[in-house]
């Protein structure tokens, strides 16, 4: 067994038993169910629009909670709260070990710093993948249930659509998790990393987009920001005529541009993280 198997295997053991990972994943699922299904369905049943469903016609409301809409439902929250949650998880996964001294212990075990860091990032990717799979399973269960209760046809999404939806959700969540991991590595403490990351993803990017309307160079800068890419990719999946649009979804970039930008982040963030860890004194 090579170190590239040993390290993620070791890291997965600690992540699997880590309450924070379950809490973050659980919070994502709760929010997904609330914003993806509960609010829309309750609004449909009661005929009142909620803030998330404002202005949606009844038919569209029902459509949004049926199985066929699953790819969009599981992706629509990823650029907003999903990404923020995974960023928190990534930041904690990287930074807690500095406070506990566990990185110090782990880095004296034998595997190189690169192997340990990549292993930890790989196990983070597994957590994100499991979260996405759980979202699909939960979404499928709830939407099928609604379809049966409402007596409409249970039309499942095509495998291609579902794959694209799950892939998009995975990529967006992974990018934010990796972003958080880098922040956690730089800050070496969860508080600063989580705080800065949240301010960035929830506030700063939006502010920059606002300023972008005034200054051209800021506008071109905003096109390469992680939030823009995540939002645009999810937006491209929903396509034109999507019901109402999901919160935070943008159409600044084309689907391909957004995908390339996201993939670039998914490659670059780990590279920077490994470089930082390799150069660092572990005092």
């Amino acid at each position, binding site marked *: *067994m090579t*170190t590239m198997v*040993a*390290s993620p*295997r*070791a*890291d997965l*053991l*600690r992540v699997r*038993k*880590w*309450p924070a990972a379950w809490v973050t994943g659980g919070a994502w699922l709760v929010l997904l169910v609330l914003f993806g299904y509960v609010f829309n369905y309750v609004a449909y049943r009661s005929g009142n629009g909620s803030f998330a469903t404002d202005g949606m016609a009844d038919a569209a409301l029902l459509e949004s909670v049926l199985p066929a809409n699953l790819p969009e439902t599981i992706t629509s929250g990823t650029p907003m709260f999903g990404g923020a949650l995974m960023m928190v998880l990534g930041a904690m996964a990287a930074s807690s*070990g500095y406070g*506990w*001294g*566990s*990185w*110090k*212990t*782990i*880095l*004296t*075990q*034998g*595997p*190189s710093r690169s*192997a*340990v860091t990549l292993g930890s990032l790989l196990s983070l990717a597994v957590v994100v993948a499991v979260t996405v799979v759980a979202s699909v399973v939960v979404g499928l269960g709830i939407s099928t249930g609604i379809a049966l209760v409402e007596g409409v046809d249970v039309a499942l999404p095509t495998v291609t659509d579902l794959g694209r939806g799950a892939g998009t959700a995975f990529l967006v969540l992974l990018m934010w998790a990796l972003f958080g991991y880098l922040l956690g590595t730089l800050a070496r403490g969860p508080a600063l990393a989580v705080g800065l990351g949240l301010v960035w993803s929830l506030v700063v990017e939006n502010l920059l987009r606002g300023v972008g309307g005034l200054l051209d160079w800021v506008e071109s800068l905003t096109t390469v920001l992680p939030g823009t890419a995540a939002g645009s990719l999810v937006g491209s999946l929903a396509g034109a005529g999507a019901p109402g649009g999901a919160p935070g979804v943008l159409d600044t970039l084309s689907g391909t541009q957004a995908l390339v930008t996201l993939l670039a982040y998914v490659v670059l963030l780990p590279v920077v993280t490994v470089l930082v860890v390799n150069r660092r*004194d*572990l*005092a």
Partner: protein
Amino acid sequence: MNELVVETAGLTKRYGSRLAVDQVDLTVRRGEVYGFLGPNGAGKTTTLRMLLGLIRPTSGTATVLGGAAGAPAVTARVGALVEGPGFMPYLSGRDNLRVLSRYRRLPDTVVDDALERVELSARGGDAFRSYSLGMKQRLGVAAALMGEPELIVLDEPTNGLDPAGMASMRSLVVDLARAGQTVLLSSHLLAEVQEICHRVGVINEGRLLRESTVADLLGTATLRVHAEPTEEALAVARRVAGDEVRVEHGELLVPLPPDRAPQLVRALVEQGLDVHSVRHGDRSLEDVFFEMTTNGGTPARKEKVS
């Protein structure tokens, strides 16, 4: 026996304007228990961190088990507990060790063996955060023992242990050495080092003041001589024993082994001096240590490694 397991040359670590470790030349031989001795803040932990590759030296080199300190192939053969145990608080002691055994690519059986050796088997299933300071420390030692590493680095291993725990930790270290493992142990507890170490390196303010066997360190046996008049007695004693003779509380401290006492006394009497008493001045490592560390930064005296 004389194969060097650790060898540093001019090892230096500078933090800004502060020299934490200054030109340390350290040698640890295979199979010995090496005591790394110094007051808090002397540079012990910084040196050990450099040996483990956790921090990079500003200058100088460190060779461990024939390779560069911190190289993966080297650290895989070293077990270490540095500056307190660092574990995941939410995992049990056993799971913490299982995580480490996976990094080391060792079977899970080593975990139970390691817990057994530090008498933690019964509490292995409890969360690390619920452990007492002493139990945390013992888990740290257990982690260092996993996989029978050739070199075990223990930084203040008896920290937080009660007297019984300290005694069993000492016997554990002695057992390790008997089994052929090399132990590099840092401590500020002199009695501990005197009891279990073969050789010691004394460090203060970042400088290695002396490196030798415990016996050699204590071995410059001292005779305490009360002879009067003191000034003349001092001159005679210096003629016999060299310039290192000192006067302390009206007594001469003469660096001579006991079998040369008659020669000294004869010389004093021949000069017509009154010899009131002659006794062996038993020195403990503590005396030597304080002598060395209080007059700060005397140049390193090293025995040749042969």
